[in-house]
């Protein structure tokens, strides 16, 4: 197991390097000369040339990439064009907000999704099963930014239970977390249901029944632990969609997180900030994926055998 964790951590390195490469290449697609863009319209030719020298833009592409990787590794993500502050600093003042939002949303996704999925599976074809599956189907189809607006309309405008926007208290978290977590909850519910149904038809569940185990124990002790194994992977994937979704949710609820920083930076053409933020969120996702894999491995020991 220890060997597996070490190996899995080492596997992250090429992925992270690849992510940096892709971000780096995408930024190469920016039309126009970055030195001209940075120096501004009024700069003289000499000034532009000096800037190009300074930024290493006259070096071959692969050298620029190595330089960039080196900078990223040392925590230097460049300087914001707009504010003049280091990009890393801008990101890390915003990151905690986004992480908190993502945390509560993944709680909504897993808790709601698992509960709904279990109820659905144990009462297959009942009214509650059918209604849960219809709601889940809607949950997958609703655009989350629209759901956010509708929640604001319902619970912040019509019934003034929650604040319309902003961040700070627990009340601020509720609507954004529901907005961001619903689609994932729907997917987790569908996955949990099919996984539970599959497990319930397994031989070892019959063995447990033959032993005289109570129905509730059969569901929560014997079936659930096995059914969770494939669900973990789905939750991990949903976490990615969720991190991406923070961009929309933060925009809807005017939350000053990383997502909003990205959008503002794109609007202002503050490319170092865009580049840095996307990199940081992606690396966060790569790390989360590693933990998901390890959790999967811990629960599913049978993998060892094969």
């Amino acid at each position: 197991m220890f060997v597996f964790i070490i190996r899995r951590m080492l596997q992250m390195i090429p992925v992270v390097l690849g992510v940096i490469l892709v971000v780096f290449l995408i930024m190469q697609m920016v039309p126009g000369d970055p030195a001209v863009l940075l120096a501004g319209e009024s700069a003289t030719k000499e000034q532009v040339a000096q800037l190009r020298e300074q930024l290493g833009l006259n070096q071959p592409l692969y050298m620029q990439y190595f330089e960039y990787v080196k900078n990223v590794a040392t925590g230097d993500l460049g300087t914001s064009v707009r504010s003049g502050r280091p990009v890393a600093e801008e990101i890390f003042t915003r990151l905690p907000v986004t992480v908190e939002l993502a945390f509560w949303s993944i709680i909504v996704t897993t808790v709601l999704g698992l509960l709904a999925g279990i109820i659905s599976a144990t009462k297959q074809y009942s009214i509650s099963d059918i209604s849960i599956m219809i709601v889940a189907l809607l949950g997958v189809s609703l655009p989350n930014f629209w759901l956010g607006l509708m929640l604001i309309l319902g619970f912040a405008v019509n019934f003034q239970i929650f604040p319309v926007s902003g961040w700070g208290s627990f009340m601020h978290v509720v609507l954004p977390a529901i907005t961001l977590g619903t689609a994932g909850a729907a997917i987790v519910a569908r996955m949990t249901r099919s996984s539970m149904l599959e497990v319930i038809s397994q031989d070892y569940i019959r063995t447990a029944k033959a032993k005289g185990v109570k129905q509730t124990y059969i569901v929560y002790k014997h079936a659930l632990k096995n059914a969770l194994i494939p669900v973990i992977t789905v939750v991990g994937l949903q976490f990615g969609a969720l991190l991406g979704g923070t961009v929309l949710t933060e925009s809807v609820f005017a939350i000053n997180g990383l997502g909003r920083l990205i959008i503002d930076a794109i609007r202002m053409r503050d490319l170092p900030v865009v580049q840095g933020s996307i990199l940081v969120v992606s690396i966060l996702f790569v790390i989360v994926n590693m933990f998901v894999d390890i959790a999967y491995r811990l629960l599913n020991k049978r993998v060892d055998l094969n």
Partner: protein
Amino acid sequence: MSQSAVQVKGEAKKGVLKRSSKVERWLHVYKQLKKNKMAVVGAWIVAFYFLVALLAPIIAPYDPLQIDLVNKLQGPSWEHWMGTDDKGRDILSRVIYGSQLSLAVGSVSVLIGAVLGVMLGLIAGYYGKLIDTVIMRFIDILLAFPGILLALAIISALGPSLINVMIAVGIFSVPTFARIVRGSMLSEKKKEYVDAIRALGASDFHIIVVHILPNIFSPIIVQGTLRLATAILTAAGLSFLGMGAQPPSPEWGAMLSDGRNFLWTAPHIATFPGLAIAFIVLGLNLFGDGLRDALDPRSKK
């Protein structure tokens, strides 16, 4: 002459036989699909949207861009079924015209994603070894970008526009297609007929495109349908963020973005475009799920 004629005839016969068995297969799929009530509902929803998009100029009661400041911010009424927006434009007409944009953007980006993804998947699966490793690592890296961030990164470089949204969402769809096609290719290339054709001296390109591709088409179609739902959702999201369609374009996401400023006074502006997105995505999901069950009985219990 006679021998070659016989041969040609034989080939032609084979062709006909093959075709009729194919027709039968699709007929079977159609029958399976018809039995699945949810899939039928989905198909009707999708057909309805395409019809609306096609007939937009005929059925839309107003010009979607016609500003009428006298009648701005009106709620739903007999004149304006979905009300009017902050510039007095008829929301129903805008939603109707919006279906053209959303379906076009969705379809084009899925097409981009499918073409690139299928190509990568075919090559990786067919040649295996180093080529496979390189391509699939690249796909893994694309998948390491959470959700729509890859699309956002591309748009940040290319600049906000509907065209760039198509490219970005297209690239966002590449990994799904590549993975599915590679998987099908791996199982398909082991089959005997591939060896037989290769023994006849067919080129790799011929084998892949003429013989294998048609046999792995069904998972591609299923994925295409489901991806179209995601693409429409993503494209609308990007337009909502101001990264795609620009005002006064009647794009659903952009309309929603307009509507958020009037959530207090005229909530209908944001409500209807959202419903329009939700229903087409629902329809595509239902239809796609049904298609998968009909084409691949194994995926069902």
